[in-house]
């Protein structure tokens, strides 16, 4: 079966876009083929800095013939209908149509339209230029003389040539005949820009990839990564060093070279005074080089790995020397930042933060810090931290943002604060908190254990969430520019480790602080004379307490994040809903414990049967309440039940005991105990449904039995809203 080879060669494609572009190319071409009925056996796409390539294997030489029957009007139908039919079926006269007989409706015209399968080559010639023209680059550009005209081709950087061939393995393939943006598809490409600049004639994928390899181009990015990683490890090992591996950097570097040549450079050991993270940041961000450790040690070595794109005639001496010069200059800058920063105390940097806007509507960093400090102090006792230290750490937590080092390398925020704080001799817990309060940065990042860090981290994240909620900048769909989901998940992880907070009350109180900042920011931004006022926020009753509408909305956001988090831990999302559906639930730790107990209970026979009994009771109640147009929510009459069937009496008694027990256990936060209490209901509920007719003839008896079912519903609500539970 024939194969397609496509290469789009351009000027240097940004490294960060290459992998995605290769994948887009594969998907666009194969989807377009499949949409036209052309199936294929396999497809693989590749990217280098200078080309996207695609190999689609096992395509048919031509598409399948299509036979279509189109039924027309009845024989003898009016002329207009017949003409319409001929036109739509592409016939010139009725002689070209046949007739069919429908046993009920009589004789009809029938057109049989046969379309020969299209040549795959022609279909490709139709598909490919369109894909090139509308390729989804994150940023595209125009270029050259053609850009004087509207509608000029856009590509990530100027597109230079196209190779497109199609044909079976055994024959010389044909060029897919198309042209786009003045470039005609052909069979010529070029090798490495410096090592093999001449033209290369290619026919199909197998000889293409080999010819490129000969011309010093490794087409497959993963192979380039392998080469870099292995050569780097070997080179380091030979010098008694270990490579500090860095997947993100490896991916980027593999996108900057077509023929990786790994070299080792060194720098003056005196630079090792600079914190290791800062050395790594500067060498990584500015030079795209890897740092090295002394073998078997955590300490950095005064050396680095660079990846060049050239097999130089001097074996790389000049390249290494050049890179060393630049690294030296960069490290001199870093050392200067480090020394300069040490001369100013974090405390003395605070006034500067008053002049930096955090968010136009939320005011300055200074205001933000005041809010976080107040909140951290308040939360401290709840997480076992010293309030004074929590407040101090929170006040200094953002001071490193105005240091030289963090100005240059924003990714070092927190870390530099911790370093400078330690040098100043601040208490260790305070220094640690400056570094750790940003954590956890992702689902796999660790959660700090020092209580001061925890108080500051919680305060920082809660302030961010309450703040952005107050100005209605909530995450939508894939857009979450302020990383609010991550902040909420961070809070969840801290709390589920065993910490108790009543979030709604904290949100309510903190929104007052945020409100004050919003007003100040408005006054600062508004032209003189415009008075600012606080946006009125609705209050609602929530489980007996008056609360801010936005606090509840934020709690709902937490509920969603908790659901996602617990689901990843293996919990059922419907159980999270069932617990959140109860009023007044905002202690995430208790909620999670309750969900856990509930899930265990529902896995037992008692649990499953009780749930079945609950569903049955709820169904009956729903039907009867609807029929009668009233709710049966009165307490059941025990005396009346006592006169009824034994099973009825037994259930009434069991309910009273179980509900009281469950309620008591819940109050004592003994959720397993609450479940045990509920489990005693299983037998009486089963017996009730076997022995007792709910819809008794005696209306009094019927009403009381419905009330009993309602009491069962009420008893289960002691632990969760069972109506939200699936199954």
């Amino acid at each position, binding site marked *: 079966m024939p194969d397609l080879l496509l290469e789009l060669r351009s*000027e*240097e494609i*940004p*490294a*960060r876009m290459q992998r995605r572009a290769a994948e887009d190319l594969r998907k666009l071409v194969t989807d377009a083929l499949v949409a036209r009925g052309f199936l294929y056996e396999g497809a693989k796409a590749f990217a280098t*800095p200078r080309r996207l390539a695609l190999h689609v294997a096992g395509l048919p030489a031509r598409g399948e013939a299509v036979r279509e029957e189109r039924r027309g009007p009845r024989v003898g139908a009016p002329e207009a209908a017949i003409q319409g039919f001929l036109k739509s079926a592409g016939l010139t006269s009725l002689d070209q149509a046949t007739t069919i007989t429908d046993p009920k409706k009589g004789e009809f015209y029938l057109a049989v339209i046969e379309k020969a399968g299209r040549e795959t080559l022609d279909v490709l010639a139709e598909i490919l230029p369109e894909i090139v023209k509308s390729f989804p680059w994150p*940023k595209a*550009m*125009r*270029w*050259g*003389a*053609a*850009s*004087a*005209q*509207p509608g000029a081709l856009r590509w*990530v*950087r*100027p597109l230079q040539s196209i190779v497109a061939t199609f044909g079976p393995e055994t024959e010389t393939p044909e060029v897919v005949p198309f042209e786009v943006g003045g470039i005609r598809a052909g069979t010529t490409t070029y090798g490495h820009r*410096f090592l093999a600049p001449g033209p290369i004639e290619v026919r199909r994928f197998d000889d293409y990839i080999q010819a490129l390899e000969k011309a010093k181009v490794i087409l497959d990015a993963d192979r380039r990564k392998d080469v870099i990683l292995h050569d780097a490890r070997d080179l380091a090992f030979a010098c008694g060093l270990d490579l500090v591996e860095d997947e993100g950097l490896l991916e980027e570097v593999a996108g*900057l*070279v077509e023929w990786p040549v790994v070299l080792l450079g060194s720098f003056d050991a005196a630079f090792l005074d600079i914190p290791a993270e800062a050395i790594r940041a500067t060498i990584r961000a500015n*030079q*795209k*080089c890897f740092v090295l450790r002394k073998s078997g040690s955590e300490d950095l070595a005064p050396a680095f790995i*660079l990846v*060049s*794109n*050239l097999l*130089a*005639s*001097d074996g790389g001496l*000049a*390249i290494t*020397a*050049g*890179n060393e*010069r*630049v*690294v*030296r*200059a960069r490290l*001199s800058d870093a050392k200067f930042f480090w020394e300069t920063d040490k001369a100013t105390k974090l405390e003395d940097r605070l006034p500067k933060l008053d*002049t*930096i*806007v955090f968010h136009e509507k939320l005011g300055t960093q200074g205001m933000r810090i005041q809010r976080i400090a107040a909140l951290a102090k308040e939360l401290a006792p709840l997480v076992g931290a010293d309030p004074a230290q929590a407040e101090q750490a929170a006040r200094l937590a953002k001071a490193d943002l105005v240091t030289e080092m963090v100005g240059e390398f924003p990714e070092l925020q927190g870390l530099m604060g911790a370093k400078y704080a330690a040098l100043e001799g601040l208490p260790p817990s305070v220094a640690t908190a400056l570094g750790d309060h940003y954590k956890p940065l992702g689902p796999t990042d660790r959660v700090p254990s020092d209580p001061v860090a925890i108080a500051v981290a919680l305060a920082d994240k809660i302030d961010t969430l309450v703040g952005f909620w107050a100005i209605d900048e909530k995450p939508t769909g894939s857009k979450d520019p302020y990383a609010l989901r991550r902040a909420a998940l961070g809070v969840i992880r801290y709390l589920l480790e065993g910490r108790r907070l009543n979030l709604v009350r904290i949100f309510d109180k903190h929104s007052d602080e945020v409100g004050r900042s919003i007003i100040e920011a408005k006054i600062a*931004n508004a032209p003189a004379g415009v008075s600012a006022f606080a946006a009125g926020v609705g209050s609602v009753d929530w489980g007996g307490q008056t609360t801010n509408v936005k606090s509840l909305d934020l709690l709902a956001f937490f509920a969603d994040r908790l659901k996602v988090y617990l689901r990843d831990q293996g919990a059922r999302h419907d159980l999270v809903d069932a617990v959140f559906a109860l009023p007044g639930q905002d202690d995430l730790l208790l909620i999670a414990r309750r969900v856990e107990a509930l899930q265990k209970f529902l896995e037992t026979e008692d649990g499953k049967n009780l749930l079945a009994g609950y569903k049955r009771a709820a169904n009956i109640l729903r039907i009867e309440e609807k029929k009668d147009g009233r709710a049966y929510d009165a307490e059941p009459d025990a005396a009346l039940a006592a006169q009824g069937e034994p099973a009825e009496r037994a259930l009434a008694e069991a309910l009273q005991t179980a509900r009281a027990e469950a309620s008591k256990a819940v109050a004592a936060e003994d959720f397993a105990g609450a479940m045990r209490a509920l489990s005693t209901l299983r037998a009486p509920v089963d017996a009730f449904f076997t022995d007792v007719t709910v819809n008794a003839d005696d209306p009094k008896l019927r009403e009381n039995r419905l009330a009993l079912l309602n009491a069962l519903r009420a008893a289960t609500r002691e632990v969760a809203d069972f109506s939200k539970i699936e199954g």
Partner: protein
Amino acid sequence: MPSPAPTPNRSFQGLILALQTYWADKGCVILQPYDMEVGAGTFHPATTLRALGPKPWKAAYVQPSRRPKDGRYGENPNRLQHYYQFQVILKPNPPNLQELYLASLEAIGVDLKLHDIRFVEDDWESPTLGAWGLGWECWCDGMEVSQFTYFQQVAGFECAPVAGELTYGLERLAMYVQGVENVYDLDFNGAEGEDRVTYGDVFLQAEQEYSRHNFEAADTTMLFRQFTDAESACRAYLDAGAPNEGERHRMVQPAYDQCIKASHVFNLLDARGVISVTERQSYILRVRELAKACGAAWLKTAGGGA
């Protein structure tokens, strides 16, 4: 006395001469620096204004660039508040602009078999000029030596056709080809013995004086006034040259001078630290509005293709 040979790897001026010769040979007009203080070669009207409109244009020139905030009192071996850019503008960009650029490196003595040249993504944007383009930083052995940009928009207008812009950082490049670690040690004239002149001989004192001026002394009251004056003068000149129906604009370049002036004054105020973060944005916007108005007027001139 024999005159020193203009070899690009021996002297700063030799490097400049070699680049001028190379680009002259490629059909560029070799212009002289614009006689105003600018932050980058792009501000020269030969780039900003000539990039607009349909007329072909090829030029190359050295432009002193002033970055008041980058002053280091002559104490940093790499940073200067006044340095030189070599600017090449080709409209429309020729299809082999990358090859032309690489050959220019060879012309100044960079052996492409020995050095690792890389085109690393760098999307260029000038908020003050309302301009952006896509291209690269060009690296030589890990050092950024040039910027390479395909202009997409200037002064808020689409470039049609697109111009290719090359900006060489001359001091860095010279340090590289001369193998010098400190900019002040650069050989300026390539002469021997007591005739030898270094970059430091020419510029060290100036760096010290201007750093003091930029950070400590520049008269901010005067500068704030100059900003406003330049802004209103720019508008006034544009009005004065505004075309009648069907005619051309008659006073773009004097107006654009005032836009350049406003931009430099803003940079000085910024270096003095008297512009807050919020104000900063609004000053940039004000300069951009001037640049846009000048660009619009330029398109109504003969040079702009009207």
